């Protein structure tokens, strides 16, 4: 039942919004992971970000695909928590430690252990629409724990225009999604984040995008 609901949500509703109301220009689709475990690491501007990326993957992978999302935001009330966990299928992540020993990345490690494909936003929150915030080092910490798992940089443009933070009405825009080459951990967190930042900057340069102010 839960899975059917999820299949309807992603297979019908999300695809209707993402592929028809919006519309995707995808480049380098062949670089997307064919199976888990893997991580899609993207810039974050909108609730639609994860939806758009999950629409890129075939439906047969759906049981294995989950967005990593903030527990404090998505589990803040019962109804939203039910929807986030059962329909959207998030991996909830606490952004702040509640006690010293808490391993914040444990849920992600467990999901990768189950062979899942995770959608992850290194910026940590949506921030100002169509503006890049600082990438946090959580991504490097995950890569350090699982150096075998490919991390695929994904650059998106337009989703923050279609549905920015604080808005509820979707306005149609074509969305660019550029997929980068998978990154692998090489032993240094700072250098790893630098490589990720560079890959994202290169993807952003593939098309000229007007500022949105």
């Amino acid at each position, binding site marked *: 039942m839960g899975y059917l609901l999820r299949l309807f949500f992603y297979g019908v509703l999300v695809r209707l919004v993402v592929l028809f109301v919006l*519309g995707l*220009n995808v480049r380098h689709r062949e670089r997307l992971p064919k199976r888990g475990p893997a991580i899609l690491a993207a810039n974050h501007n909108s609730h639609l970000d994860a939806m758009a990326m999950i629409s890129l993957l075939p439906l047969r992978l759906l049981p294995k695909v989950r967005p990593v999302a903030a527990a404090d935001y998505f589990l803040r009330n019962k109804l939203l928590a039910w929807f986030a966990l059962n329909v959207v299928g998030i991996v909830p992540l606490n952004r702040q430690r509640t006690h010293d020993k808490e391993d914040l990345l444990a849920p992600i490690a467990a999901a990768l252990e189950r062979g899942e494909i995770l959608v992850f936003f290194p910026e940590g929150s949506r921030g100002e*629409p169509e503006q890049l915030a600082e990438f946090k080092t959580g991504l490097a910490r995950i890569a350090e724990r699982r150096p075998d798992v490919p991390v695929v940089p994904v650059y998106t443009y*337009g989703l923050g*225009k279609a549905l*920015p933070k604080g*808005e509820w*009405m979707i*306005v*149609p*825009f*074509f969305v660019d999604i550029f997929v980068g080459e998978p990154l692998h951990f090489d032993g240094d967190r700072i250098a790893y984040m630098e490589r990720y930042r560079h890959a994202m900057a290169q993807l952003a340069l593939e*098309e*000229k995008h*007007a*500022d*949105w*102010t």
Partner: protein
Amino acid sequence: MSLESLHLWIPPSVLWTFGAIVALLVVATIVVALMRRGDAGKHVELAARVNSWWVLVGVFAVALLFRRGIAIGFFALLSFLALKEYLSLIPTRRADRRVLFWAYLCVPIQYWWVWQQWYHMFLIFIPVWAFLFIAMRMVLRGETKDFLRAAGTIHWGLMTMVFGLSHLAYLLVLPDGKPAVGAHGAALLLFVVLLTELNDVLQYIWGRTLGRRKVIESVSPKKTVEGLVGGALTTTLVAFLLAPVLTPLTHTDSIAVGLMIGFGGFLGDVTISAVKRDIGVKDTGTMIPGHGGILDRIDSLLFTAPLFFHFMAFFYF
């Protein structure tokens, strides 16, 4: 299954013309296959373009053949896609996000007038009502920086992608008022769309084979005088031959319409080229392999559709 059992709303002349288009595509496919013989890496773009033509003709045929309502809905969808491509391409202001929502809402409303055959509203809704409403909505938001540019670009999009294109759909209801003229809306629509797209192809072929002198280099460096004139004249010849099959046009008028589509199509094409050059992109999108975006394919129609419509409305209806 006989043709009658399908309850098509179109006349046989439209079916015959579609048959001729399919024959033309078969020839084009064979020619391209021969050109690519021995080396699959040759003419990849051309092959993709011919393949896309098959899909476009198929979609257009399905949209047109069955019911008038389906056909009108198809053009509403086309306007939506074209407007979306345009508004995604141009710089828009964050303050206008909801204004753009209202602009999108003009699409179903405009096509509703078409379906209702409310000619007066069809003509003034976007030039008057949407024009004033969008300006009001923008000014009440209070953002004055780049106001004129934003108001101008949004309205330009509505005029071309919604108002201009909806003329194609109005052809479908046009003859209802005066059945004595003996023209079928679907036949008129097929006539202008076929000639416009054929004109694009013919200008390309003439330009590639004989093109020497640039016609408007700063906008579109590949367009040549030979392509333009050769294409337009060939289109006029086809218009002259096809007019008796699909339209009530007299011989003289069919030549005038052929020239109008030939040169009007060119102007629509280079107008969208100018927009793309202004923004700094090569194609308007990636929806149609080998062609680019929706706008790259329908650019010529933005001019020829209203021109042909008002020629017909003035002289025949």
